């Protein structure tokens, strides 16, 4: 452990990689601080720039964006009252009132400090649990991996804001997309006579197309329907360091609890920062001696929200690295980066690429330090940048998406793939289809098919999936997640119906 970590630290500690982490963190904070841009979009925009880099440099840059992105949401949350990313919604509850009271520097400082500690605690969780889970999953055979992928997809689909049917449909569609082109037996599928389709669709243009177009066009529609959403703010901020140290000293337990909640939730498929910050805010309120003051601008709320959403960063790496199953959208893209660099995430990664795993740990830690320095020194500038209008941002990001897709293989076909999946993603978004299961399906499709048929080639009976205990457990959990999601939907509908009845009474 110590050996490979020292080797990794030596590789990450070079000036060029440190510079990349700095650039990543800066871009991540900027991306996270612009309302509607989101961490995922920041990662997608930076992804193409890693093509020509070695794996350690590419991954370090991406980790920088990841760490910066999760902390960036606080800037617009505090300054504008609009969360920069969905994972900082509860930051607004106390951050904005504190800023309105004339203490924006204090709110930002508390949030940044909590983000920093949250990230470090989540790295500790990753360092401890990552190898443990990986060594446990070394016993997984194709049956278990197939069942685990099915479980991850049903879980993510089930958590799709009450749209279970559409979530499952999206996941199946994502899997179907990966069947285009030559398969494992070198047979052509769904090429419709076009040579270009023989190689199938590259994962990157498909992911960018589906996510970026729907997100950007959605932002424009929101702006059209609610022009007031683009507001200005006073960006004059001074950080009161002594007061923040005093505030944080009184929040030790809250910080630790929220960071652990964030790490744990980050490690669960389909949850991510948004769920983490709600759960931890709720827990902080329940454990507080003054719950009635939450929402009025107190440090407790900011700490709970920011420590937990930043802790998602380390936690989310646990299943991605140890099992090869990304839990959310940013992690799915991160997995795409690793695959692009010829590395297959999964239990073997800890044996075959320990230095790269160490580089991820080191980048997360260095990224956290760089993030806190950047935020404290440059917060005024980030606040100004968060005011960039969507009208300027959208064409620029679309252009970067096109160039990124082209640069993947120097192939214009990939730009058309981006465009086609952009249209598909936008239409599906308009039809309220959740896009996360779709993208996870695209990422996991090839592996699912490979593992499924490897299992059937080893043992031709499909019943083996049910006779092997772990495989049966994962399949049972998949069914349970669907049933639970149905139950939750029914419960929500009942509550809404009761609400409507009592309003009418």
């Amino acid at each position, binding site marked *: 452990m110590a050996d490979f970590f020292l080797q990794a630290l030596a590789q990450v500690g070079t000036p060029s990689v440190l510079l990349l982490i700095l650039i990543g963190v800066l871009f991540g904070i900027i991306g996270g601080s612009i309302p509607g841009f989101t961490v995922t979009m920041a990662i997608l925009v930076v992804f193409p*720039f890693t*093509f*020509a*880099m070695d794996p350690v440099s590419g991954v370090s840059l991406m980790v920088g964006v990841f760490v910066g992105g999760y902390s960036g949401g606080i800037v617009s949350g505090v300054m504008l009252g609009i969360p920069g990313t969905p994972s900082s919604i509860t930051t607004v509850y106390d951050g904005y009132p504190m800023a309105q009271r004339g203490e924006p520097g204090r709110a930002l400082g508390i949030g940044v400090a909590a983000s920093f500690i949250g990230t470090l605690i989540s790295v500790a969780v990753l360092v401890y649990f990552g190898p443990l889970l990986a060594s446990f999953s070394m016993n997984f055979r194709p049956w278990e991996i197939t069942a685990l992928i099915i479980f991850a997809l049903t879980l993510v689909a089930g958590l799709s*804001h*009450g*749209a279970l*049917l*559409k979530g*499952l*449909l999206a996941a*199946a*569609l994502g899997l*179907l997309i990966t*069947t285009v082109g030559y*398969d*494992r*037996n070198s*047979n*052509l*599928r*769904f090429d*419709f006579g076009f040579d270009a389709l023989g190689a199938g669709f590259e994962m990157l243009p498909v992911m960018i197309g589906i996510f970026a*177009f729907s997100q950007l*066009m959605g932002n*424009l*529609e929101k702006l059209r329907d609610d022009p007031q959403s683009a507001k200005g703010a006073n960006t004059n901020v001074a950080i009161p360091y002594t007061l923040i140290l005093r505030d944080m000293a009184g929040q030790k337990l809250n910080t630790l609890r929220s960071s652990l909640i964030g790490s744990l939730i980050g490690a669960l498929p389909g949850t991510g920062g948004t769920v983490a910050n709600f759960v931890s805010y709720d827990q902080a309120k329940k454990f507080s001696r003054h719950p009635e003051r939450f929402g009025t601008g107190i440090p407790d709320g900011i700490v709970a929200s920011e420590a937990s959403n930043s802790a998602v960063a380390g936690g989310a790496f646990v299943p991605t690295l140890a099992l090869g199953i990304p839990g959310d959208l940013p992690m799915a893209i991160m997995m795409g980066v690793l695959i692009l660099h010829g590395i297959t995430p999964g239990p073997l990664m800890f044996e075959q690429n320990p230095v790269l795993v160490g580089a991820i740990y080191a980048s997360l830690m260095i990224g956290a330090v760089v993030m806190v320095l950047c935020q404290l020194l440059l917060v005024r500038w980030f606040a100004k940048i968060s005011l960039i*209008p*969507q*009208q*300027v941002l*959208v*064409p*620029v990001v*679309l*252009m*970067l998406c*096109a*160039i990124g897709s*082209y*640069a993947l293989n120097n192939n*214009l076909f990939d*730009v*058309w793939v981006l*465009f086609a999946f*952009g*249209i598909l993603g*936008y239409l*599906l978004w*308009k*039809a*309220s289809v959740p896009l996360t299961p779709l993208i996870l399906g695209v990422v996991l499709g090839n592996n699912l*098919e490979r593992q*499924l*048929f490897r299992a*059937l080639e080893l043992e*031709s009976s499909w019943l083996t999936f049910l006779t092997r205990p772990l495989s049966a457990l994962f399949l049972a959990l998949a069914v349970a997640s669907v049933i639970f999601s149905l139950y939750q939907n029914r419960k*929500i*509908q009942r509550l809404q*119906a009761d609400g409507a009845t009592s309003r009418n009474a």
Partner: protein
Amino acid sequence: MLTLTKDRALALAMLALTGILLAETRNIAPPTSWQPYGSALFPQILLGIIAVLSLLLLLRTFFVSPADRKDEPDRPRRSLAAWIRHNGTVLSLFGLFGLYALLLPLIGYLPATLAFLVTSLALLLGIDTRRKWIINLTVSCTLAPLVYVIFRFVLNVWLP
């Protein structure tokens, strides 16, 4: 009268796609003695799942009221012309992007990117004031060459 709601349109589109792709799976090489499961089985399983889910979605639109369908908010229906007018900016931006993809190999990265940025910024920002033109041209003329320099000279990636 039956109306084409979003869910119905989605379900019907998915069923049509399933039909086309299921027919296409007949063109996939059949199973052999050393590939007993063949290459068509996996997509056929997925298409079967998609068909069942689409049918359920379609059936739900007849048996569950829109108010109970959390994932399909009840919104006022518009005619196609009104919908196109309402979404004119987004549709134009899609059109501009398609044109950009078309122009990239024909006139090269720099002219195509400049044209795309200037026109799309003009579409979104407007062209009614001098300030908007200054923002438009500053962003376009700075970013297009900057991205070229980064890809070409820092990352060694050729652009068209």
